[in-house]
């Protein structure tokens, strides 16, 4: 029975992959017709390679009766296709590098779904993750290079790596394991402070320390966007596991305190807040990027200017954080909303997996990863449309950026593994 369940699921996945492949080919075809800038065949070749990568993975899963959620891979394939199309449109050199990272990511995904099916074992090693995570964050401080105001990159010669992207995964693994183990104690608490029952220090100590250290390290790296994601994911997972709104409020208060401190301590945080509130004051200086992003967003109207007809060249770093603005300019409000909805679908499927999970660890892991992806997407899109200050993090699967892409594929792998386990255990029972 498990076997046919897997086949059915993969059949659904296959149908969706046909659609995404068509989407990718249409996009590549449009670029092919769009002279004069593009070495046209390069686009088609790139698109073909990407497609083949996804299909090979799909076929592998079919062969090995992988019973994971059939929607996640096509959704991610959609993102990757959009990313490739737009990177080719913006600058083929970036697209080619992204293609290489995409292949690496697909390989990582394969590794995770092949060798980490029994992910549950990972729960045993939580303190090792904590240590590895801290080391990972320490490395850039001592050996790292600075990019875009954040000293969070390691230069490995041929390419650059951003450890904080991978440490994110370790953080969620650690928290899921720790919270699953201790959640009851944390939820109920043994002491009363200010009328709120709180657990004893030894209960929440290790977690808070671990989290606090990562935050501090991020601040030293000056990667405040990543710090924000770590913080919000932490709060999300604590809430999910303990349901204590008090903790969320405490967390919120801590956040405001931290934000105030950051505002007064860091020049560039002040700047970011200023250009968020009124970028037009500095429209030709620090606020240029946000202002140009807004122009791009509105230039396309509802249906967009059409692929290739927009003017993304006015936005600095348009291939990374602001790729969303370029997409909305050319695909319009309709395209932007569509993209956001696809992200919503991804989050929805992720939470479905969490809700179907059999035990606390799996549930928290899935919820944590999904919350991580969702919050990151929300924060960066909000920054691009000036709903929130800009934070310099990547749009998952869409922005140009290797470490982010590979890390996100690893997260996808874990989500799929959990989903697979849910399927086969429910199949047996």
């Amino acid at each position, binding site marked *: 029975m498990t076997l046919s369940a897997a086949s059915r699921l993969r059949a659904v996945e296959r149908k969706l992959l046909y659609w995404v492949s068509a989407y990718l080919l249409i996009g590549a075809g449009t670029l092919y017709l769009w002279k004069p800038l593009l070495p046209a065949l390069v686009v088609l070749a790139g698109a073909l390679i990407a497609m083949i990568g996804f299909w090979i993975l799909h076929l592998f899963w079919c062969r090995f009766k992988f019973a994971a959620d059939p929607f996640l891979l096509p959704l991610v394939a959609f993102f990757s296709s959009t990313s490739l199309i737009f990177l080719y449109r913006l600058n083929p050199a970036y697209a080619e590098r992204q293609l290489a990272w995409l292949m690496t990511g697909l390989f990582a995904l394969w590794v995770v779904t092949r060798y980490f099916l029994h992910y549950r074992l990972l729960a045993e090693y939580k303190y090792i993750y904590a240590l590895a995570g801290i080391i990972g964050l320490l490395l850039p401080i001592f050996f790292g290079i600075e990019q875009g105001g954040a000293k969070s990159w390691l230069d490995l010669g041929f390419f650059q790596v951003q450890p904080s992207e991978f440490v994110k995964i370790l953080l969620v693994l650690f928290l899921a394991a720790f919270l699953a183990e201790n959640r009851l104690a944390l939820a109920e608490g043994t002491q009363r402070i200010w009328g709120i029952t709180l657990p004893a220090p030894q209960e929440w100590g290790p977690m808070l320390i671990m989290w606090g250290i990562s935050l501090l390290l991020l601040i030293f790296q000056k990667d405040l966007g990543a710090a924000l994601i770590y913080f919000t994911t932490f709060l999300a997972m604590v809430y*999910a596991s303990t*349901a204590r709104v008090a903790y969320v409020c405490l967390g919120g208060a801590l956040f405001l305190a931290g934000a105030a401190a950051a505002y007064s301590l860091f020049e560039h945080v002040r700047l970011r807040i200023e250009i968020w509130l009124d970028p*037009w004051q500095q429209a030709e200086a620090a606020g240029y990027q946000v202002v140009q992003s807004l122009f791009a967003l509105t230039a396309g109207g509802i249906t967009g200017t059409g692929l290739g007809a927009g003017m993304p060249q006015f936005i600095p770093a348009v291939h990374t954080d602001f790729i969303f603005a370029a997409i909305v300019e050319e695909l319009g409000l309709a395209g932007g909303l569509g993209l956001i909805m696809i992200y919503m679908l991804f989050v929805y499927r992720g939470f479905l997996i969490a*809700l179907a999970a059999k035990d606390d660890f799996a*549930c928290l892991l899935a*919820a944590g990863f999904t919350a991580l992806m969702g919050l990151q997407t*929300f924060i960066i*899109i909000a920054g691009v449309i000036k709903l929130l200050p800009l934070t310099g993090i990547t749009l998952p699967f869409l922005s140009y950026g290797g470490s982010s892409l590979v890390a996100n594929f690893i997260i996808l792998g874990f989500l799929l593994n959990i989903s697979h386990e849910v399927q086969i255990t429910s199949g047996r029972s």
Partner: protein
Amino acid sequence: MKANVRRLSYMVLGSFVILCLYIGYVIVFMGPTLASDPHNRRLAAYEASIHRGTIFDRRGEILAVSKEGRRVYPLGEDAAHVIGFVSQRYGRTGLEAAYDRYLLAMNGNDKIKMNINRLLGRPLLGNNVIVSLDSRLQQLATQLLGDRKGAVAVLDPRNGEILALVSKPSYDPNIIEQPAGRSSGGKVVTVYDLLQNDKEAPLLNRATQGAYPPGSTFKLITAAGALTTDPGVSRRIFNCQGSLIIDGFRLTDTAAHGRVDFFQALAVSCNSTFARLGLEMGAERFYQTARAFGLTLNPWTDVLNEVAYRPGTLTHPEKMNKPQLGSSAIGQGEVLVNPLQMALVAAAIANEGVIMHPHLLIRVQDPEGRVILQSSPRPWLTAIKPEVARIIKEAMVEAVNSGTGKEAIIPGITVAGKTGSAQNPRGKTHAWFVGFAPAEKPRVAVAVIVENGGAGGIVAAPIAREIMRAVLNPASGME
């Protein structure tokens, strides 16, 4: 715990919904404003792909043309204010700004044609605009003003076409973006930066934005008000004793004119007479008369705005006391006008009391010469009745023939005019002349002001004379 996860999922998905709503708001509501924001380079980039049309004067002379991607203004400083300029850094002004949509063919049907041309790879050409200005008049007026500050406004009273608008000091719009030195901080300073900081305000279009006391030229309006209230005024005799006391305030004349009739009073510009007429009329009537001539109004309200216009101002009747009324009646006090407004006053009297809508646009043509838009003259205000206009005209003719305006006499042509020497806090009086010719069938109305130039009859009248002569003299080929 599943319940928590469920709630968490709602929160995360909810935040995405907020994202959708906000981005919808940004695009739908902020979109149009952002599209025309000066920091938005899209419009400039789009425009750069279109060959901007040419602005021609009434005889086909080029006033503004695109050459090799730059905009060239052959008349240079002679027409800088009215033509304006297009600059990426400093925006667009004047007619260049007003006719943007025509010159870039961005109007309705033109847009469709443009998109088709774009798809087919044809050159994208904007439309051409023909305006009522006469480049030779612009040059002449600039020359006549010379080094002095001031303005000239010339129009055709029969149809409201503006023939010339000149403002001095002026500048060369062709070079405004060129570097002109370095500031104390080491930054490069352009010609425009210098112009902006120049205390002489060369960027101001004095012809339409100037705010000057009109002096005795305002007596035309006082006369109109008096005649409208009581047509018998034209038969009255006045006794000018050289000054008039109004509530303790002493209003003086340049001389004691003695017994003068209405026409002589205007011809010699008797202050006592007109101050008295103003007082008799009352502040309310006085204000309404001024308004009837267009004071406080902008002719370009509700139509395509062609010039930067500062409507004339006058103290409100409730706040005007008798001494102010007396002073205002002779164009001092708190009356402030721009030269074009005074030319419109002359045009009203010339055109039997009807002010035709002043305008510059004659027609818009596509690159192949087909007429896309043709303007037609239409009336703007009825300032006074024809009988009143006739009487004032007669007085203005006398003013030129035997009064203060003798310098405006043109052999063979009957000129009607009124001089003015407006006192002002900054030195010598402003020299004004306002008039039209030929008096029987006027074809040109003109207003000239020379800032701090002295006596209107001596300094401004000769300039007006030469301009009217140039327009009317068939030998010069002008209309």
